[in-house]
């Protein structure tokens, strides 16, 4: 499972990151001041009490704090190591990242007694553990305890199987689509399914980093089909890359500098915290949408967020929308999209339109309108601010094959992206497989139509079932998720109440769903349920499980 690293709490990763970095520095600075002072004041009785006692207190406080942090982390590391490898080094716990940074500094100071540094170093280290970057700390602190990660792990350990493990945990958290049956195609084209019938020498060599032209043409065709051919996508404006995460990260690197931010209406995909922020140093400013507005974006709220950021000195470089949206599955109206373009134009910022579910529009209400269609008739200066992300893995149920795309009207962005994608390219046998699978327009039509029908049928079943349990969902017209209102089941209207319910759903109901807090939803009690990997037979099983949890909640509340 491609993991995302959303934080459980709504505070950003970068805060904790900064704290760890600065904290370490601050403490060593304090040490440098206090140690020489201690030596000076020890000779004078009068100042002795006044100086040494605070110094001693300070040291013991340091020691106490460091010991506690070590305990916290050895708990985490214990959990990690059990799931990770049979490591060759048995005592490979997490070295305290700040400790190692301090250790590095301490060894450089002259005149510092070695015994002092011994207190701070892990006893088994001779010279101190070699330190790693701040990014590592960010991962190790935040990731493991988030519901997203915990839920995934539970599914892995105890996966539901109709026959083999009927009491296992049902995965409703990860957007996998096995609705689409490429089985027929694979049966008819066994060689193409592995290597397009080409010899090794035909596919082994270095190829253009941004993808074979043939594949780009096929992808452009597929994207057009998803918009019911109201847009004709130009293959030369495509850059292929190994996954939507990579596409979003590449765009983040291209459109914003470290310290800048993107506006992101919430609830949003849990993946953005990693894809947009992790390695880029770019921040996300959430713009909350409310259930009262059906979670639609309000331009007024957007505006306010922009100016508040500006006042704080944060430069907004763009806005990231998803359409069909994740997690609600709503389709943005033309009006919305035009308003968004105006907004971006007036503030001179970019728009990243995450259209990875474009081929999975299953509802009858509304139409999917791509941002590409909106800017079709605009001047270049505005087209250049629009960038679309597409992902074959969603619509074609190919997540393992790692193939996504950036579509942009901005030649500079394309040029930079082409170079950046050398760091995350699509494997050539996969490119050839995809070419075989999606070059034929008839095949593409069939795939898209089948995908839609199957998604619609499961969605309808699921929503009906939930309604019978008293759980309403927002109307979803595209994508793989139901956005379910479970506010009636939570014990307290708070994140804590939400997480309690999530726990019950996971441990009593044995279903893995994503709590709204992972999607940065400002209202507690909403849950994202993915249905694309369910068969019709699974729906009643899921319903029974949820019913069990409902009953538990009612009896407790």
């Amino acid at each position, binding site marked *: *499972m*491609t*993991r995302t690293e959303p934080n459980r709490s709504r505070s950003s990763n970068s805060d904790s990151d900064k704290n760890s970095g600065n904290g370490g520095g601050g403490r060593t600075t304090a040490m440098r001041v206090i140690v020489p002072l201690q030596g000076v004041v020890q000779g004078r009785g009068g100042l002795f009490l006044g100086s040494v006692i605070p110094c001693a207190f300070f040291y013991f406080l340091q020691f106490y704090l460091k010991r506690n942090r070590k305990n916290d982390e050895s708990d985490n590391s214990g959990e990690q*190591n059990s799931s*990770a*490898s*049979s490591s060759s*080094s048995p005592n*490979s716990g997490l070295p305290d990242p700040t400790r190692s940074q301090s250790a590095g500094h301490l060894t450089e100071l002259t005149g510092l007694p070695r015994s002092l540094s011994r207190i701070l170093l892990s006893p*088994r280290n001779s*010279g*101190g*553990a*070699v330190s*790693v*970057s*701040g*990014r590592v700390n960010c*991962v190790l602190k935040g990731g493991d305890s988030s519901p997203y990660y915990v839920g995934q792990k539970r599914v892995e350990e105890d996966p539901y199987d109709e026959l083999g493990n009927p009491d296992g945990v049902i995965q409703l958290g990860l957007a996998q689509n*096995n609705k689409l049956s490429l*089985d027929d195609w*694979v049966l008819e084209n*066994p*060689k193409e399914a592995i*290597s397009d019938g080409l010899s*090794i*020498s035909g*596919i*082994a*060599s270095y190829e253009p980093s941004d993808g074979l032209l043939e594949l780009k043409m096929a992808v452009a065709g597929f994207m057009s089909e998803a918009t019911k051919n109201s847009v004709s996508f130009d293959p030369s404006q495509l850059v292929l890359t*190994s996954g939507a*995460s990579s596409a979003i990260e590449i765009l983040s*690197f*291209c459109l914003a*500098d470290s310290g800048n931010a993107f506006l992101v209406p919430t609830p949003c995909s849990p993946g953005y915290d990693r894809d947009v922020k992790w*390695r880029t140093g770019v921040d996300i400013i959430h713009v909350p949408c409310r259930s009262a507005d059906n979670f639609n974006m309000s331009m007024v709220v957007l505006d306010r967020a922009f100016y508040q950021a500006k006042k704080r000195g944060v430069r907004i470089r763009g806005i990231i929308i998803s359409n069909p949206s994740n997690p609600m599955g709503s389709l943005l109206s033309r009006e919305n999209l035009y*308003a968004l373009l*105006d907004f971006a*134009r*007036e503030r*001179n*910022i970019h728009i990243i339109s995450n259209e990875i579910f474009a081929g999975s529009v299953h509802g009858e209400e509304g139409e999917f309108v791509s941002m590409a269609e909106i800017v079709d008739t605009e001047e270049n*200066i505005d087209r250049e601010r629009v960038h679309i992300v597409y992902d074959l*893995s969603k619509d074609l149920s*190919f*997540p*393992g*094959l*790692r193939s996504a795309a950036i579509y942009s009207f*901005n030649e500079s962005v394309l040029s*930079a992206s082409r*170079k*950046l994608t050398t*760091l*995350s*390219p*699509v*494997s*050539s*046998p996969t490119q050839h497989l995809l070419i075989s699978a999606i070059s034929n327009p008839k095949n593409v039509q069939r795939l898209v139509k089948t995908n839609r029908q199957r998604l619609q049928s499961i969605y309808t079943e699921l929503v009906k079932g939930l309604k019978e349990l008293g759980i309403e969902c927002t109307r979803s017209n595209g994508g793989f998720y139901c956005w379910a209102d479970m506010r009636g089941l939570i014990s307290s209207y708070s994140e804590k109440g939400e997480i309690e319910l999530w726990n019950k759903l996971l441990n009593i109901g044995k279903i893995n769903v994503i709590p709204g807090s992972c999607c940065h939803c400002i209202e507690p009690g909403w849950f994202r349920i993915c249905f694309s990997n369910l068969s019709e037979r699974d729906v009643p099983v899921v319903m029974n499980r949820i019913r069990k949890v409902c009953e538990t909640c009612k009896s407790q509340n």
Partner: protein
Amino acid sequence: MMERSSNNNNNNVVELSRVAVSDTHGEDSPYFAGWKAYDENPYDESHNPSGVIQMGLAENQVSFDLLETYLEKKNPEGSMWGSKGAPGFRENALFQDYHGLKTFRQAMASFMEQIRGGKARFDPDRIVLTAGATAANELLTFILADPNDALLVPTPYYPGFDRDLRWRTGVKIVPIHCDSSNHFQITPEALESAYQTARDANIRVRGVLITNPSNPLGATVQKKVLEYLLDFCVRKNIHLVSDEIYSGSVFHASEFTSVAEIVENIDDVSVKERVHIVYSLSKDLGLPGFRVGTIYSYNDNVVRTARRMSSFTLVSSQTQHMLASMLSDEEFTDKYIRINRERLRRRYEIIVEGLKKAGIECLKGNAGLFCWMNLGFLLEKKTKDGELQLWDVILKELKLNISPGTSCHCSEVGWFRVCFANMSENTLEIALKRIHEFMDRRRRF
């Protein structure tokens, strides 16, 4: 709802980031410019015999036939979806776990052990898969260093490092200068000097990154140098990254010492934890298009983080499946490694002999897909410009795309990297002929 504003009364062109507009990717260097010239006029034996011969791309095409035979005939498991057929395909297509297919990791570990003649063991659970060594090097840099920190890298080095190690990471490269006086080996003085240079500029050094065997030198790093490097890294409390992408292309297996061998006998975790190895199938197996790279680290934090970070650059599950059974077939890989080494050695001898006859000396090499050729004596001006002028002449007159030492940051001018494994023997002969004729013409004047 706001009304649509009619016209654009704000003539601002939307800006891009510093990363996007910088040239830190280094792709404007002659290294890449030569490729362009080749793309515009590529040599073809029958259709374009006077075209540019590509000798600037380190690709291994000498052993394709071995792979083809295996993958297409003897490997039903990998070349189809096995007995599972279509459901096998579906299962594979849905697999996106950043741990990677266990069978594939085991196969990679076993392959890496074989290349090192069993002198080091590799634990499959320490293998992190990335889409190519390019991605592996960048990922490691993100993990081991913060923006504005530095890695020490011996020169001359692979031009791609400017992009891979620096561009998005914001990390600097501080060169460890090597020269021909000792066959470009790293000396303790050069190492200390590089470290000091960084310190003087207030730059924090986070590690040393070497390529072993070296690109562009085409030579292995001596065992004592490796031991010294590790010792240095322990003393300075920094990391050691060894890019061993050409480890399977050493002409005589006994001449290669991997850093893994050195670490094998060390128990001290604080020493081992700073060592990381990068590998890829692009060079040894000649499968650069497949994009299969790996980070092997003795540091649990690094493995854990690298795995998560590899989400941005996963290896296609189809590719993993295709190669897993081939790489774990020890009989095949043993034969492949042996024959590949033989053929590369033979190519190397052909080119070095041919150059010698033309009066050109090369650095004594024992590995890789290229040789390091000395044309210093041909330079009118012993400067970088002089070297680039000569490079231009070779490209335009001889229609040979070779890589000038300056693009590899070599501190001595006049050296060129010449690749010999990405063409047929015929083409190699033709390239040598062009060089001979060129040298003849120069002697006459």
